[in-house]
């Protein structure tokens, strides 16, 4: 029951997202913003699965989105535009990249792991930049959104809104289920005390690699949605800045559970959107606010209720 209580803000937000198109947020601009928010939240939740769940702090998660998005681009160029093929291809491309790079990266830990994932992410970025057939640095505009079994379903803004929401909820529930399972328990144990886990007979490597590949696959699915949301893909999607933003969403939301990443992503995008309309040099203020959040919200956004509770008890 206590877990339910902690997840309540995230549940309310999901309810709000479901209601949004019907309570005055249904026009084009707003739906575009909400879709971007939900897709980034999905990526942040999948990143939180390995950061908070397995202690794998990746600074290359945007590359997973990139592989998903570029799978859409390359298939679009080959005139393969049905989600029945495109979505599995996006997921497999990202999962394959996660498997190959994770096999190396997971042999390290701590700062080395961060640096290796960053390096692999940058390799993906420069590779994408050099794909002159797909626009190189300038990016690639899709002919149209991906079809679903021949139907132009995703073109409908409302349908696309609920596809994104469904994908976000699915990602959250899947990662949550995984962390509660035997598999997840071993992951969390390895994060909490690797020596203890090994002394019990668990080799951390296969568990961590499996988690890394699952997170990569979900990132690929988010990349598929991202490409469709903007109908445009550029190497900037894969840049390390994007990976850093995703990691920041996870930390801003709090590491006590996956719902933190959801709050963090939505808070991050909303703040970014609002500030950018207030002031030309909004990024300065944005940085300051993020620093303040880290300093004064040790439990992140998801830790605010507990923090307020503690302060009230002290008085």
């Amino acid at each position, binding site marked *: 029951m206590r877990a339910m209580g902690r997840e309540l803000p995230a549940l309310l937000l999901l309810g709000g997202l479901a209601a949004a198109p019907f309570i005055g947020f249904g026009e084009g601009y707003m739906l575009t913003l909400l879709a971007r928010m939900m897709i980034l939240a999905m990526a942040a939740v999948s990143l939180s699965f390995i950061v908070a769940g397995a202690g794998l702090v990746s600074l290359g998660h945007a590359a997973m989105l990139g592989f998903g998005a570029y799978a859409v681009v390359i298939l679009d160029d080959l005139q393969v535009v049905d989600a029945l093929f495109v979505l599995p291809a996006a997921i497999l491309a990202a999962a394959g990249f996660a498997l190959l790079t994770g096999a190396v990266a997971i042999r390290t830990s701590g700062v080395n792991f961060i640096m290796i994932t960053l390096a692999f992410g940058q390799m993906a970025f420069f590779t994408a930049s050099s794909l002159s057939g797909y626009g190189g640095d300038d990016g690639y505009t899709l002919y149209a959104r991906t079809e679903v079994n021949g139907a132009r379903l995703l073109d409908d803004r409302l349908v696309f809104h609920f596809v994104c929401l469904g994908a976000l909820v699915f990602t959250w529930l899947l990662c949550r289920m995984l962390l*509660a399972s035997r598999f997840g328990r071993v992951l969390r144990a390895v994060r909490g005390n690797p020596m203890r886990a*090994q002394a019990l007979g668990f080799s951390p490597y296969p568990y961590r690699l499996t988690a890394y590949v699952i997170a990569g696959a979900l990132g690929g699915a988010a990349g598929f949605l991202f490409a469709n949301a903007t109908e445009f893909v550029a190497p900037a999607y894969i840049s390390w800045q994007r990976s850093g933003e995703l990691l920041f969403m996870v930390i801003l939301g709090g590491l006590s559970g996956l719902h933190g990443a959801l709050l963090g992503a939505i808070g991050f995008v909303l703040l970014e959107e609002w500030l950018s309309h207030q002031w030309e040099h909004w990024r300065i203020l944005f940085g300051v606010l993020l620093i303040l959040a880290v300093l004064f919200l040790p439990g992140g956004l998801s830790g605010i209720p507990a923090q307020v509770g503690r302060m009230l008890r002290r008085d």
Partner: protein
Amino acid sequence: MTEPLLALHGLQKRFGGLAVTHDVSLDVMPGEIHAIIGPNGAGKTTLINEISGVLPVDAGRILFDGQDITRLPLHRRARLGLARSFQITSIIPDFTALENTALAVQAGDGSSFRFFRPTGTEARLNAAALAALDSVGLAHRAATPAGAMSHGEKRQLELAIALATQPRLLLLDEPLAGAGPEETERLVALLRSFRGRYTIVLVEHDMQAVFALADRISVLVYGRLIATGSPDAIRQNAEVRAAYLGEDDLPLAGAPC
């Protein structure tokens, strides 16, 4: 004649110029409590680390139930039935006592690549974990996060974790370290209740406890085994007395409790 459960043959380990394990050979028989004592810096914890697989040895062989495990990593040895406790408490702080112990049960219960069922509903794991907690007197603390427990309780939990793996050999590295007098009394009674049920290699500084618990004692001095024998034989041994000269904590004269 029964075969030893654990046999060490000529183990060697050097840290730079320092021989921390020097030609150590030792048999541990099934069902015995075999204590390893020695002055500070004798290499007792190093020896436990070598047996459990935390540290590789430079030379020599380690046989467990006749199988050569010298080159097996820690987690493979654990799966064969070697459970260890750590001198510095090694628990998972943000897990509850029950989840710490249930993880140990899970280790011996087939593959952990199971993705769907929430562990909270795994009655078999949780019942076995609760039984292990109960056997160390911690059942009432099952829902407490391990990080929030007292030092003595953490030592008990450490034992429960080791027991929950249904080990064939328990390697206990100073299970009494840092425990107060009352906690020590409780832990010694607990370890005494293990006699005959588990084969134990015990490293411990508390000589009262060692002489009360052990079936046999081996004495390690500067990485070298100088004697192995019954508590009485060790008490009489001139070389052991010399090694402990000036230390008050070896009850060489008086009979132990």
